[in-house]
């Protein structure tokens, strides 16, 4: 489904962010990427989201080469991917419902769909009670759940979670991971980057370990080893 083929990213100042990275992700897989800060995790995700182009190599999503997509096609492609960030990136002047509806509006969905889908997706992340609250009235864990709801509401094929638990306490971290697992069980591919040893060890899913821009380990039922 996703295939990185000998991808390298060298910035103009000759710093190497990624070097000769190859791996594949199958549909409905749950892949965690671990590594120190600066190991290249975020660069990898950015390139998958077509925010940056690889210096060498190719990135395939299904059978299309992402780096050759034109602007309009990139938009279509991004609608197939949901993204969750460490810092949530919710719009502070809109309530939970509006934050999620906003993503659906931008994707061009009908009003009726929005009215039906938003409560449904909030139920999935167990946040139905806070539908009319504003982000500043929510805890970190709740904010992250809104952000996950926003990422999955357009029914993407892949959900990318870039350090989603980085700002959360252990209990909320556990909740978020459970939600991601649930999403994965419902048939969506999930790619997760994290520093959190506990998360990796409890997941018992595939782990890619990165160091200095390279993938140094690829374990089927991995543990956090660095």
């Amino acid at each position: 489904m996703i295939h990185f083929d000998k991808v390298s990213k060298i910035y103009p100042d000759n710093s190497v962010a990624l070097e000769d990275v190859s791996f594949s992700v199958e549909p409905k897989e749950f892949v965690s990427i671990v590594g120190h800060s600066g190991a290249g995790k975020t660069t990898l995700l950015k390139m998958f989201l077509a925010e940056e182009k690889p210096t060498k190599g190719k990135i395939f999503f299904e059978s299309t080469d992402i780096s050759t997509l034109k602007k309009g096609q990139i938009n279509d492609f991004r609608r197939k991917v949901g993204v969750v960030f460490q810092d949530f990136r919710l719009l502070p002047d809109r309530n939970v419902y509006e934050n999620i509806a906003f993503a659906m509006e931008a994707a061009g969905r009908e009003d009726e769909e929005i009215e039906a889908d938003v409560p449904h997706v909030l139920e999935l992340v167990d946040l139905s009670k806070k539908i009319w609250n504003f982000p500043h009235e929510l805890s970190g864990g709740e904010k992250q759940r809104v952000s996950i709801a926003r990422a999955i509401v357009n029914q993407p094929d892949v959900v990318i979670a870039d350090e989603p638990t980085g700002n959360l306490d252990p209990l909320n971290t556990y909740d978020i991971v459970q939600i991601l697992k649930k999403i994965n069980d419902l048939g969506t591919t999930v790619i997760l980057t994290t520093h959190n040893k506990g998360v990796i060890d409890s997941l018992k899913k595939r782990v890619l370990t990165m160091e200095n821009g390279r993938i140094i380990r690829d374990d089927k039922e991995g543990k956090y080893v660095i």
Partner: protein
Amino acid sequence: MMWIKIKRIVHSGFYSFWRNGFVSLSSILVMVVTLFVIGSTIFSGAILSSTLNQIKDKVDINVYFLTTANEDEILALKKNLEQLPEVAPPVVYLSKEEVLASFKKRHQNDEFTLQALDELGENPLGATLNIKAKDPSQYESIINFFGLKGTECSSLESKFPIIDKVNYCQNKDAIDRLTNIINSANRLGFILTIFLIIISVLITFNTLRLVIYMSRDEINVMRLVGASTNYIRGPFFVAGAIYGFISAIITLILFYPITIWLANTTESFFVGLNIFHYYTANFGEIFLIIVGSGVAIGAISSYLAVRKYLKV
């Protein structure tokens, strides 16, 4: 689908305008000033050209014939004159008797003159022709037709022997001067307008730059969920157009009391043109010009700002 998108773009344009109200204020103010100058140019143009028309109407050429001139010859000359393309028909012919009658009427309270006229026994006055040109610049060629000599504009001599003298004391100087004033006023207004339009575009451009900066989270989220370029840019165009529209409405409202006040103070000065009546009579046209310019300025500024600062 298309309709939903347009609706959402317009809606979020209004939303962005409303939320950034205070930031928008400076754009609106400077646009009001610009539109105000555009409107003032329209008004001053109307005042000056109506004054010019009135003066133009007072310009004419009077041809005085010798008392011995044959009426048939005069009428033949009149016919020739009427065939000149520059002459605005009709050329008015007053026979000797009519000239005398109007002379007597003019001097009916002047016993002395009338007495002198009676004592003369015969009609000392010649027939006259009164000629108007279609356009003041065309008097020269009519004058040429008579082959005039002399420096005193009130008594030029003609090549036609039956003509005693030609009076062409033009308000021509006045007209030339007024035409010059109008032309330079128009030019000044034009330069000022261009200058202010540039300032408005720059300030609106900057406002939108700030708005784009403040909306960067929103734009980021939109990009990540795959919103199309036009969907992201659209609201900024709408906001720019709204600035222009609101400024135009404010300007039009401002002109209402101002023209009433001007009408009262200038009516005796600029004869015949009531500026307030002009405003209300031509409101449709002025509305279109002001609103059109406002919306155009707003849209152009947002186009520039979006192109420069909104990398999607």
